[in-house]
């Protein structure tokens, strides 16, 4: 059983099979980093299938769960921690508890090599500010599905500005209620309605940062 089988089983969302292959690969001396890479390419394809309407929310959720399960067995095997390509502080904004999309984005971002600090749901602006001080992330991600949450996003960006931390981070917003106008209104740097695009954006930012 090869990495290719793993990717195939992953795209078929066969959780048991994915885990079995991952375990076998590890036992026979496979490189944990390569397994993570294989998962990354699988989630990529799953994200694209979702964008095309071939996959549904049920599949995305399962994809995220499979990723988490694989990580549970692979991470302890990593000889040295792979250096994350970036750190992202992520949360659903104050007043909003929708987290399905946020969790999917989290799994996708982790699969792409980011370290994600997940603040959970209904996160007040102060919490975001505190987390920026504590973790020094490159990026702040806010998820929002309620119209009422738009104000919370603006307040959060304002609080980050007030704490003089705005220049240290890029801010991306996502979730069903988010569009270009919201992005401008809240003062974020980018917005998206799908996790795959979100990951592409933060990857680009990470590249720009390395280039500097």
């Amino acid at each position: 059983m090869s990495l290719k089988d793993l990717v195939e089983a992953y795209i078929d969302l066969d959780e048991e099979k994915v885990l079995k292959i991952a375990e076998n690969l590890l036992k026979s001396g496979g490189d944990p980093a390569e397994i993570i890479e294989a998962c990354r390419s699988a989630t990529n394809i799953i994200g694209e299938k979702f964008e095309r309407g071939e996959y549904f929310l049920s599949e995305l959720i399962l994809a995220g769960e499979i990723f988490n399960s694989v990580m549970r067995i692979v991470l302890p095997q990593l000889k040295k921690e792979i250096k994350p390509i970036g750190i992202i502080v992520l949360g659903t904004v104050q007043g909003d508890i929708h987290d399905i999309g946020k969790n999917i984005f989290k799994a996708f971002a982790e699969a792409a090599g980011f370290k994600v600090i997940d603040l959970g749901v209904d996160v007040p602006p102060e919490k975001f500010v505190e987390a920026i001080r504590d973790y020094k992330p490159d990026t702040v991600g806010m998820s929002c599905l309620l119209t009422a949450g738009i104000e919370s996003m603006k307040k959060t960006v304002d609080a980050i500005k007030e704490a003089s931390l705005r220049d240290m981070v890029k801010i991306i917003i996502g979730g069903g209620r988010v569009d270009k106008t919201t992005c401008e209104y809240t003062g974020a740097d980018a917005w998206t309605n799908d996790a795959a695009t979100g990951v592409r954006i933060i990857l680009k930012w990470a590249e720009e940062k390395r280039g500097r």
Partner: protein
Amino acid sequence: MAKMKEPIDLWIERHEREPDVVAKEKFDRFLKAAELKVPDRVPVAGLFGDFLCEYTGITWYDLSYNLEKIRPAVLKFVHNFPSDWGIIFAPMMLEGFILGLAFADFPDFSNTIRFLTGPVHDILKDKWSQWPGREIKEDFHPQFRGGEFMKPEEYKQFIENPIEFIHGTILPRACPGLGTPGSPQWNAAWIKIGMTMQKIASFQAQLIAEIGKMGNIGFPLTNAYAPADVIGDFLRYPTGAMLDMKRRPDEFKMACEVLVEPILKIATAIPPVPPLTVFFAPLHLNEMLSPKLYNEFYWPHLKKIIETLVAKGYKGFIFFEGDHSPHVDTILELPKGWGIAWFERPKNFMEVWEKLKGHTAVMGGVPTSLLIGGTPEKIDEYIKDLLSKIKPEGGFILSPGVNELPKTTSVANVRAYINAALKYGVY
């Protein structure tokens, strides 16, 4: 110079002048549409939500708790924005079907306790919902949060005796206000809930009678639910439910199976009265599921419930939330004339209509975003075009995807929606 009267103004005047005649017209109109026949005009569904609060100057707190303020606000709103048929939750209600299930064997109130109200929430302190002036601000819409109150390993116990499991395990977990089963607090809480429900029910009965006198109608309404949604909404959270379909498929199906009977008991607590008694069910997991999962874990049990109730003489009234397009074909498996399908935001409404017309009464067609962000001209034009495509076929009810509109919706837009129905809806 006096402003020219629009169709809505003339209709309002008729409500004042001859409410009985207007009500009779509405009755026939809605009934015919539900029976797939051609009425005199396409019925137009009523609105509600933040828009009502803004227009009448009351808050969500008032609409949830303040019975004295609700009456004048609702009466004013119903007067100024007439419709052929509508539901206004006064006081405001949220999903609480699990409570109906808990008392499924008590038809005298299982159908009433199935909705959560603010005052009942104050007693239960349930974690399923949040209320204005309590957990959230007074001008916030009450919120359903749901949550995970059953562990995946507990399916077995649930399947063995769902009602007992709800009482013994779920309610104590989700409703701290109840305390320990059998304790004085527990017993007192249920008595208080009974008293509160009594008060609310008599308030509602009075309000409905008053609205009726103003030229409005209602058909007897009972409630049903999709078994898989009971699991997603109240027990395992939507994400948990979807994972269980993959990880514990047999248990998930069994759990749905054992829910069918209690759901039918709740629905039949209100007997079918001719010519029309509808059972309402909002669907939640539907749009999130792939057709494969929908057809295996969601539809079979829901279908059984619909078919059983239709055979008993009810008609269905199902709110297909989200984009139901991927699953629309399954509706054709139901007997022709089974009921009304209300669509929230199908990707392509006309496609859905073309598939279902002559088989299912269809409600919807107006994107909520158009009412919020459009102009009166755009709304007029859109509805004119829509109705020209739908008529002369009957079995259609004009409605936005959801009947709750935000505060920012303009009065002119809402009037344009009703005007357009009156102008272009005549067959």
